[in-house]
């Protein structure tokens, strides 16, 4: 029972989702959207499980006397944001009201942290290019050449080197790049169909044996 019912639920859900795609008539029409709403509600509530996992993990660490300082920072960060969020909802009716203390945390902690982590990519893209782009094989050389041409095509120096550079870079993006992307995407589409069919037919049950 513990295994049959979940499989039944998943097969039926998949079947209804597919039927709803083809049948506009009640009760199928709009069912896909409804199920997606259900899904977002369930994952939304499941966030509590995630939070429990996170806090519990760090609470245990503090009790085991490892990582006391940093785990306390994590729990502190969580609590202050959560409390201010709830406070803002009660006081302003909406945590996202521009003057709310919750938005202070968003503006001066969440946003700078997020964009600085994002900015690390500028460094990593340089180190990855330096390390990986070597003319070891024909294929690797093609990757290197395409990258260098496109980079040159996007800065004034490239056009100074050869006036056709920006156009050439654009052409690489629009023709060979597009062709390969399309081929990969067609493969991905088939792979998705394959994965879906394996789940619907019960050959693959990722969530249970």
């Amino acid at each position, binding site marked *: 029972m513990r295994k049959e019912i979940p499989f039944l639920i998943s097969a039926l859900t998949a079947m209804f989702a597919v039927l709803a795609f083809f049948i506009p008539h009640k009760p199928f029409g709009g069912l896909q959207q409804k*199920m997606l709403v259900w899904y977002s509600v369930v994952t939304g509530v499941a966030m509590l499980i995630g939070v429990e996992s996170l806090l519990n993990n760090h609470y245990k660490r503090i009790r085991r006397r490892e990582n006391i300082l940093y785990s306390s920072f994590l729990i502190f960060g969580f609590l202050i944001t*959560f409390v201010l969020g709830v406070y803002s909802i009660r006081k302003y009716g909406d945590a996202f009201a521009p003057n709310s203390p919750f938005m202070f945390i968003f503006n001066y902690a969440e946003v700078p942290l997020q964009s600085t982590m994002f900015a690390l990519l500028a460094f990593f893209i340089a180190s990855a290019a330096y390390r990986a782009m070597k003319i070891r094989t024909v294929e690797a050389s093609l990757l290197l050449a395409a990258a260098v041409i*496109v980079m040159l095509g996007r800065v004034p120096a490239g056009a100074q080197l050869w006036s056709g550079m920006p156009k050439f870079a654009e052409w690489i993006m629009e023709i060979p790049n597009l062709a*390969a992307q399309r081929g990969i995407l067609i493969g991905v589409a088939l792979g998705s169909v394959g*994965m879906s069919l394996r789940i619907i037919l019960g050959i693959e049950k990722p969530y*249970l044996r």
Partner: protein
Amino acid sequence: MTSVIGTWLAAFFTLAIFSFLYKDNPFYKVAEHLYVGISAAFWLIYVWSFTVYPLLVKPMIKNGLQGENLLLLIPFIFSIMMLFRLIPNYGWISRWPMAFTVGLGAGLGLTGAIQGILFPQMRATVLDLWLKNNPLGTLNNWLLIVGVITTIFYFFFSQEHKGAFGKIARVGIAFIMISFGASFGFTVMARVSILIGRVGFLLGDWLHLIK
């Protein structure tokens, strides 16, 4: 005043994250742990404000459990079952909502992959082999068609990449590699823009070195 404190706080976070590039250090650790904690709470509030409250709680409070709203019982029950995860020995109950989610993914994946990817990509590949007075356009069309088909060849699993088949697949790999290189190069500019933004914040908003 609050904005001055805020700016210093933001500057601390910015520098602490950048310090990770040199090596792991206490400043990064503080910023990292605070970030994980703050953002976990942020998304909890976000999900409540934009998903759980408006999609489940609000309609139930507003119209009660009747008519269309009866359907809301499904996500409500699934949500409760999910929370059984937190009770030892009853964790298996959460397999039901998980099964629902996986099933939904499979159902949507099946039709979505064909409608959203396969058909549009195939349609766009049916191109003219001959464009009047446009040799470059004609060449481009040929290249696109050859590129798409040879790339698909690369993904054949039941054929060893040998002989004529291997040669075609190798052309596909060439297209893939050019594409990866081009995308890599194309992305540099957007990433550097983000870094310029952060450095600009430090030099401008924080240190007032540039106006």
